[in-house]
């Protein structure tokens, strides 16, 4: 890792740890937790979008499958840890099924199938009143106590979310640099060539779908722990689109891009909306501006600007002095 990256990473870690002491207001600490939860969701969506070239409009389905499973099992008297593990398993298995269906069609067809699957999960959540509480939603009796730690308060929950986020970021970072990640990016760029190099393109894409589903489920579970409640409003098409937008806005080709996108969109949704009535218009305007000026997203865009700036300030090599005439 480069020295500059290490310094930036150290500063980011220090800031994230010190955040509840800097912004002491509970509202903003909760906002920071929300940013981290949506960052996990955006990162997981980006595994498919940025590294795999698969655009999904059904990612919010994992919030639903993981969230409802966890709540229903907890209400049924399961141990919260077992309920969480079961929820992750059920949701990841559903990702496996969704992947099998979605990968039958490339490009736009893939997008439409993921959208349809997301809508099916939303429809079930909306209609299955006995199970999900329908439009009214259902509540989680209480936040769990991982290893005996109480995460009821805003600060303790923030630190719990920060740990989960750090694990997710590290896991997905390793994924991106791994042999599997290299195969995935190859299938994104040249699927035909990758087949001729011996790679099973379908299997690589399907496994990515499943891994993204797993991390999406982790994000979904954290979403439920944060709200202690789940209703179909959390699984709408708009929610899936926002997660996708977070990845695109920040920069789908990078690891940190979706995190930046998640922070910006969550802040605009929750903070700017208290001052600006038409916050959706503001979000749209920001998105259009970013796409026009930084088509690859904010992080790659600013990185390119920085490189241009750095190269301009570099001293130019001086021409060699002419050799003296004999």
């Amino acid at each position, binding site marked *: 890792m480069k020295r500059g990256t290490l310094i930036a990473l150290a500063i980011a870690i220090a800031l994230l740890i010190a955040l509840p002491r800097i912004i002491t207001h509970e509202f903003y600490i909760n906002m920071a937790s929300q940013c981290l939860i949506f960052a996990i969701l955006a990162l997981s969506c980006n595994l498919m979008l940025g590294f795999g070239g698969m655009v999904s409009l059904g990612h919010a389905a994992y919030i639903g499958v993981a969230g409802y499973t966890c709540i229903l099992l907890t209400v049924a008297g399961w141990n919260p840890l077992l309920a969480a593990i079961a929820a992750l398993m059920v949701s990841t298995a559903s990702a496996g099924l969704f992947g099998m269906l979605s990968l039958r069609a490339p490009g736009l067809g893939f997008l439409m199938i993921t959208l349809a699957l997301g809508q099916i999960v939303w429809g079930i959540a909306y209609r299955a009143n006995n199970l999900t509480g329908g439009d009214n939603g259902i509540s989680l009796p209480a936040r769990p106590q991982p290893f005996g730690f109480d995460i009821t308060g805003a600060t303790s929950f923030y630190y719990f979310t920060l740990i989960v986020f750090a694990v997710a970021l590290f896991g997905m970072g390793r994924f991106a640099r791994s*042999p599997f990640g290299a195969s995935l990016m190859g299938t994104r760029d040249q699927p035909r060539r990758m087949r001729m190099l011996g790679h099973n393109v379908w299997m690589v894409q399907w496994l990515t779908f499943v891994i993204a589903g797993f991390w999406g489920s982790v994000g979904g579970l954290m979403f439920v722990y944060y709200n202690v409640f789940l209703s179909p409003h959390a699984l709408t098409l708009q929610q899936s689109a926002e997660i996708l937008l977070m990845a695109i806005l920040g920069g789908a080709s990078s690891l940190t891009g979706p995190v930046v996108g998640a922070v910006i969109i969550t802040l605009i949704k929750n903070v700017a909306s208290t001052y600006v009535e038409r916050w959706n218009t503001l979000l749209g305007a920001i998105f259009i501006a970013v796409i026009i000026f930084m088509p690859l997203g904010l992080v790659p865009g600013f990185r390119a600007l920085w490189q241009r700036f750095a190269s301009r300030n570099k001293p130019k090599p001086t021409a060699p002095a002419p050799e003296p005439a004999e």
Partner: protein
Amino acid sequence: MTPALAIDGLNKRFGGLPATRNVSFTVMPGERRLIIGPNGAGKTTLFNLMTGDLTADAGSVRLFGHELIGMPTQKRVHLGLARTYQILTLFPKESLLHNVKLALLGLDPVRWNPWTVLSARTAMNDAAHAALSKVGLDSSADRIVAETSYGERRRLELAMALAQKPKVLLLDEPLAGLSQEERKTVSALLKTIPRDVTIVMIEHDMDTALEFAERITLLHYGEVIVEGSRAEVVADPRTREVYLGD
């Protein structure tokens, strides 16, 4: 001896247009086979049928006795088939080293590992450098493909194919678009490929190709019309009529 490649009654139609018609021939292990024919004769289609890029309507392709028809492309590669493309198919934003690593990964079970760091796998790094070294590109290993010359990219394609240690190598116009100097370099490279690799090559540069080939198959309108040793095919009046001219 089991043929390296045995093609029997291979047919492919694109709508009403027959691309290959009842193509049959065998290539023995270690052989250097040249496929020639005018544009549109079905040469690249034949390669695509062998690799599985296209699905055959009828017929059989056997690689050392294994039936390839109906088998996914990647499995054919695992059986020892490799190819280069007429239109370069590389990963232009990546380094030359990474391109070769993708070729090596294709046959390595580590490709399923989502946890280890690829750049830290020293054995793979060394193997990729060795493959690049064979085609004289090791000093450019860290350069991005998009910044290299056409000739270097041709050599990279060859390095990727050879890195997989194939049993049968299909070369689709490996000299196309190269300058005279580059042609000499690539031709010399082809001669260094060991005899345990069977080579089937499509090439229009007849001076180089004839020097390289041991047996030649002439395709015309998707049919094999002449097949034999270099001398037999060149002497055949049908070869002059449809391809070489007077």
